[in-house]
């Protein structure tokens, strides 16, 4: 933006604002879910997450306790505080209105006096203190009091506790971990050896093999599902963790070989030739020189594969048994929670965050390697 000195500041402003808008736009959806996962479930359905820091106006109902009635100058009187009743949970708020029928739960301003149909009065003060009077005994049940109160915002870990416990997301978390770790570690070594051969060994058909790997990079996984599941069942693996580890290993290999070969081919030729002149075998060159030098590429691939396997839904749906003990988090969310807990946003948000917390952590701590891997894979 240099050459246009006169417009420079205005343009810089425009750029700053545009980028800010873009970042906000990109962050808002995730922020909404994060905030909601900590909110109380009643408050979620009462106000939007963007109003989370403010008090929530909600309507409650309580019944004045007839047993607490006392006689006072010829009248029966019940006094108490609406915020102490069973229908209300959490810290005391501020009453913004009250009523005596469900149809009009906030028809009276706090401090006003409402006349009951059977005679008598109800009044509720802003601080929640109420007073019910009646000319005769209340009998067994006191009158209903409806009130609308501004409840202070409530944040808690309740949603997480419920999701991890009752909804068996804890088990699913462990299953995801169980699937991901071997499926990330095993392909690396297999791919590294092959990548070394493709990068530094001369043999007929090398170019063809590299082209084949590039081609396999884009083969849709959908093709592999039916034949391989059949194969697994014939061999006796069936739908199991062993099966999914093998499947992910196979599916991850093209990217691994491709990334590692690109990186290894870029290593300085001198080092490798010197080692060979000094009498090192290919095996020694690989384990002592190439493998340590390729660490950044190995890390990139490991991150890719980790994110890919952790986030995968398709392979897990097909290659793992559909029983509850073997469900990974993505399957759990997509197949169970969205169906049975469709409208329970607090639970859904907590479940989603349980599943994306680890990838986000990996992303933010190892972003450098991720970017490097991306660039090695596509920029020439």
């Amino acid at each position, binding site marked *: *933006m240099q*050459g*246009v000195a006169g417009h420079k500041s205005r*343009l810089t402003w425009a750029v700053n604002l545009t980028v800010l808008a*873009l*970042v906000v736009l*990109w*962050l808002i*959806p*995730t922020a*909404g879910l994060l905030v909601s996962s900590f909110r109380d479930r009643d408050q979620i359905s*009462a106000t*939007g997450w963007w109003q989370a820091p403010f008090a929530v106006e909600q309507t409650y109902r309580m019944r004045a306790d007839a047993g607490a009635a006392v006689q006072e100058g010829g009248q029966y009187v019940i006094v108490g505080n609406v915020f102490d009743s069973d229908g209300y949970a959490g810290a005391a708020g501020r009453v913004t209105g009250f009523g005596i029928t469900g149809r009009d739960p906030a028809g009276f301003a706090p401090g006003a006096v409402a006349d009951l149909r059977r005679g008598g009065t109800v009044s509720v003060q802003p601080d929640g203190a109420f007073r019910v009077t009646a000319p005769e005994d209340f009998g067994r049940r006191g009158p209903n009091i409806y009130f609308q109160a501004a409840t202070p915002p409530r944040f808690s870990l309740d949603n997480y506790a419920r999701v991890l416990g009752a909804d068996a997301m804890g088990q699913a978390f462990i299953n995801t971990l*169980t699937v991901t*770790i*071997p499926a990330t570690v*095993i392909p690396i070594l297999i791919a590294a*050896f*092959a990548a070394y*051969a493709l990068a530094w*060994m*001369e*043999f007929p058909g*090398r*170019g063809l093999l*590299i*082209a*084949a790997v590039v081609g*396999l990079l*884009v*083969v*849709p996984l*959908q093709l*592999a*599902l*039916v*034949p*391989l599941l*059949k194969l697994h069942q014939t061999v006796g693996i069936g739908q199991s963790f062993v099966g999914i*580890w*093998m*499947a992910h*290993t*196979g599916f991850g*290999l093209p990217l691994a070989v491709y990334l590692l070969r690109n990186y290894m081919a870029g290593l300085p030729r001198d080092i490798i030739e010197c080692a060979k002149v000094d009498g090192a075998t290919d095996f020694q060159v690989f384990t002592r020189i190439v493998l340590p030098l390729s660490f950044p590429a190995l890390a990139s691939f490991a991150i890719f594969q980790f994110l890919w396997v952790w986030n995968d*839904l398709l392979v897990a749906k*097909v290659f793992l048994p559909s029983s509850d003990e073997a469900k990974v988090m*993505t399957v759990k*969310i*997509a197949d169970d929670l*969205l169906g049975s807990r469709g409208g329970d946003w607090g639970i*859904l948000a907590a479940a989603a965050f349980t599943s*994306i917390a680890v*990838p*986000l952590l990996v992303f933010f701590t190892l*972003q450098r390697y991720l970017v490097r891997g*991306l*660039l090695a894979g*596509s*920029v020439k």
Partner: protein
Amino acid sequence: MSPLVQGLVTILIGVGGCVGYFYLSNLVLDRVIFPARGPDPGRNISRANAVRPWLFLFPAMAALGLYLVYPVVGSFWRSLFDRDGDEFIGAGNYASLAADETFRTAVFNNLLWVLVVPAAATFIGLVSAQLTDRLRWGNLAKSMIFMPMAISFVGASLIWKFVYANEADIGLINAIRAALGADNPVDVLQIPFWNNFFLMMVLIWIQTGFAMVILSAALRGIPEETVEAAIIDGANPFQIFFRIKVPQIMGTIVVVWTTITILVLKVFDIVYTMTGGNFGTQILPSYMMGYMFRDDGRATAVAFVIMVLVLPVMVWNIRQARKELR
């Protein structure tokens, strides 16, 4: 044995097995089959070196062959048989697909996805790459836009389901509509035709970061002189960007574009999670999941259609790779 322990054991077996295989096979090759001694050690060494690459390649090639090459053939073969796999029906599955209206919707929607998502993600990615490049807080901004890459498609779908929710107190879209005076909330995922675009938004949101990171690296690789020359010639910032910079990184733009295109053809999670393919939002990968476990003949036929759609990009990629090798 709990699966987690089983997993750790598998890692040990897998890694140990790999190391053992490579070490022992090389040892056997050098000491037993072609030892560097005897009447003609030189010939033995060169023979051993001719075999060695295949030792290195064997495990990867076996796995690739079994898990990616065989399925292409196997799926095609299976798609020629009926539901139970007993009766050969030739193109019967493909014929019944062509007659199915949902399948045609799925193909149409898929083409829509292929047109819109890569274009939008690449364009927004390119613009944000250029804009963030000179900012002091550019890296932070990039990080934030890049972040959805780490989120699963299922997680992202849930995040956006929340934005699209059919209540003004939950969904941001309906809240904005209500603030502007609309009376009733709408379920944007049920608006015919346009709901497809709301689903695409999720994938664009995820993929823009990918495009941005790669394009920003490409932009930095542009030689300064070309930009300086343009400035001296009096080009304005827009001309510099569109006429000088973009043409120079066209190769990378195409790579990004094709990479996202392939992804679009494979992703089934978003549609599966958000609409289940209802309301006219079906796409091929999620259409296939409907037949998975029920009618393998149909499922493989759909998979093969996806493969055919991917094929041009595959051929193009291989050509590019071969060009670079030369």
